[in-house]
């Protein structure tokens, strides 16, 4: 990789922040731009530095990480946003995806896992868990026009929901690993769009717009 991936980390737990900071610094692929622990600092950093990746926690002392994700996604659509999840509790992950995130890492993921997850995302893919896949299958029903899944996307989701890895799903569908993870990223985008469309519809229904 010719150019280093520039990373901003937002995490209020100093131990975890320290852990991720040292991982990023130690990695040959990444360059740490800012490591901070509040929404305010992160917001400033987003405007002042051109970052490629935002790693953020959700519960922050001065606000919600979801707002930060929304702000980053609207201002810099090309930015890869990852949420740091404590226990991989799927509700939080899905909220983050709806807000614009396309990936997540667990707080206790080891060095290699974190690195590969960020790299995979920068390469156009997204990590996913069976529970998230199962949730997406329920949310993005074929009859929902705004977020119609393609046949392949649907099949990949179904396999992942049953516990198969992205690699296994790719093999079973005779597609590359890269294509499989891109499908997942597309699905995340569709969830985001679908959520926004639902929000607009809800606003119209309540005569807010």
């Amino acid at each position, binding site marked *: 990789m010719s150019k280093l991936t520039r990373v901003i980390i937002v995490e209020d737990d100093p131990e975890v922040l320290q852990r991720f900071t040292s991982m990023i610094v130690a990695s040959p692929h990444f360059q740490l731009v800012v490591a901070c622990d509040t929404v305010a600092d992160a917001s400033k950093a987003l405007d002042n530095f051109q970052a490629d990746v935002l790693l953020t926690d959700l519960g922050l002392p001065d606000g919600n990480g979801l707002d930060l994700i929304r702000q980053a996604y609207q201002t810099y659509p090309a930015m890869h946003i990852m949420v740091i999840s404590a226990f991989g509790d799927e509700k939080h992950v899905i909220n983050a995806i709806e807000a614009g995130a396309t990936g997540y890492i667990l707080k206790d993921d080891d060095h290699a896992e974190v690195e590969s997850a960020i790299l995979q995302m920068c390469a156009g893919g997204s990590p996913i868990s069976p529970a998230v896949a*199962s949730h997406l299958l329920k949310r993005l029903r074929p009859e929902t026009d705004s977020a119609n899944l393609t046949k392949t996307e649907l099949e990949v989701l179904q396999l992942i929901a049953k516990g198969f890895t992205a690699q296994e799903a790719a093999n079973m569908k005779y597609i590359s690993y890269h294509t499989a993870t891109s499908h997942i990223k597309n699905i995340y985008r569709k969830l985001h769009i679908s959520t926004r469309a639902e929000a607009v519809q809800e606003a119209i229904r309540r005569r807010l717009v």
Partner: protein
Amino acid sequence: MNFRRLLRVFGWLPLYLLGLYLLAQQLDQLDFAPAERWKVELTGEPSGLVYTARLPPTIGEIQEPALLVLNVQQNVAVYYANGTQAGGEGSMQTPVSRNKHRPLLFRLYDQAALRPGELLTFRVATTSTHRAYLQNVYLGPVAELKQSFERNDLWRQETVKAVVAILLLTALLIGSMWVVYPRRKEYLWYAISTSLWAAHSSNLLARDIPIDDAIWAGIVPLLIGLSMVSLITMVYYYVGLNKHRSRPYGRWLRHLWLATLVLAVPLFFPLNTGEVSYTLIWEAYLSLVFSLVLAYLLWLYGREQNTRRLLMLLCGFAMLTFGVHDAIVAQTKYSTSPFLLHFAALLTLMAQYFLLVRRFIYSLRQSQYYATHLETLVAEREQELEQRYQQIHVMEQEKAKADERERIMRDIHDGFGGHLVSTLAMLERPDVSLLAVKANIQDALGDLRLVIDSLDFDSQDITTALGMFRSRTMRKIKQAGFDLRWGIEDIATPTGFGAEKILQLLRIVQEAVTNSLKHSGGNSITISTGTDANGRSFIQIADNGDGIPASYQAGKGLASMRKRAGKIGADIDICNLPAGSGAQVRITLPTDNPALAC
């Protein structure tokens, strides 16, 4: 009942009886007679059939002379000395006109026959059953006598007519209520009793009767008796059903009717033995029955004092007092006292009338109320039921929540807590190994994730739950140098297989995987799902190790797997694969179809 209470409840009774006695006495003396100087001195024969009176010396000075006869049994005709009839009213032949209860006023027109000292002759006629007599005859100016005549007529005839009219009218009114509500028999019996009483009282009014004297003389006391028994029957129905949904004393009432009818027979066959007539026995019988009823009323009032019972008691004693009075009058020879019972009867029947009408109106109001409020009442009841249901629902929900909370606490305590405690113990040892501590903490986190995953609504599908288990356990399996093969296909999730059962299932799988990692000596684990020949879903964990040695004593791990399987209603089968190619754990889930359960 102690004396004090007796005094409080019944203290008024002697005073009331005394009052009634004095009243009867006063009414007895009420003869509305003219001035004493107009009274005629009668000379009579012992038979009582002929009386004579000498005209006074002042007869010539009397303006428009007239005769006033106040008491005669049964009829009288007056003759001048020359034999011509001076006056009379009604028949002197059988059937004799009955003038006992009305005053008679004859104008003496023949001035020529009215000479002082001349004799007037009174010929008396009577029925076969009554002794003839004549009393209280007055001779004076018609203007003076007329007032007494009119007052007597009012008191002894017009008042009775009014009473009879009122009785018949109330009988008609209450009788028509019975037509509307045929089930309310008390209305019918009230009407019967009142009509009989009216018929009885008409005895005082009827002058000429179309039937034989003897029969009439039997009918009159019979009517009063029947009326009284009817009144008792009315009370019997009025009191209503008791708590056993039946009427007590029904048999006694039938006996009373029978006895009354039997005892009434001799009334129509006068024995005429000596001076004692059978009516005396009859009246004694009625008084006895009535006293019993009165005693019952007293007892009722003693138990509970209310207006209704008080009213009945007051009327009852009035009837008893006046009834006894009348019986004495009827048995006294030559008595000129008036009968009084019909006044008491009127009082009683009016009181009953008041009670019945009040009840009728109350039931009318009630039915009207229900007619207009039925919908509201039903709506209110429905709302009440709905609220109750909601309450029960909320309680059930809270119970379910509490149960779920308790279960989660237990799960966290058993798994996560257990790992933390053992980690703590590990740290306290002098030769603490950081790697072991890390592994322990990872196990603790893994278990916590298992609990969280099982609670996730989206993972309530067994294959997704297994998938989550895989993503959580993959690292551990890899680190142990094992390869994981994933053979999951869609299986049916049994109904009601919620978070708790999913967690139990995942823990069985986890235990099986841990056993394979620790003890199998192989390098590959296969987790697969499927549906067996019986249509039951199963989950299978197999390794490629050495299998379970025959000498192996089933330890805590296997026992806990079986226990958990029992809790979720699954069958567990732990065995070695053929030809030493590893061990296999198969968990067969319960089925929804009872026909498939084995």
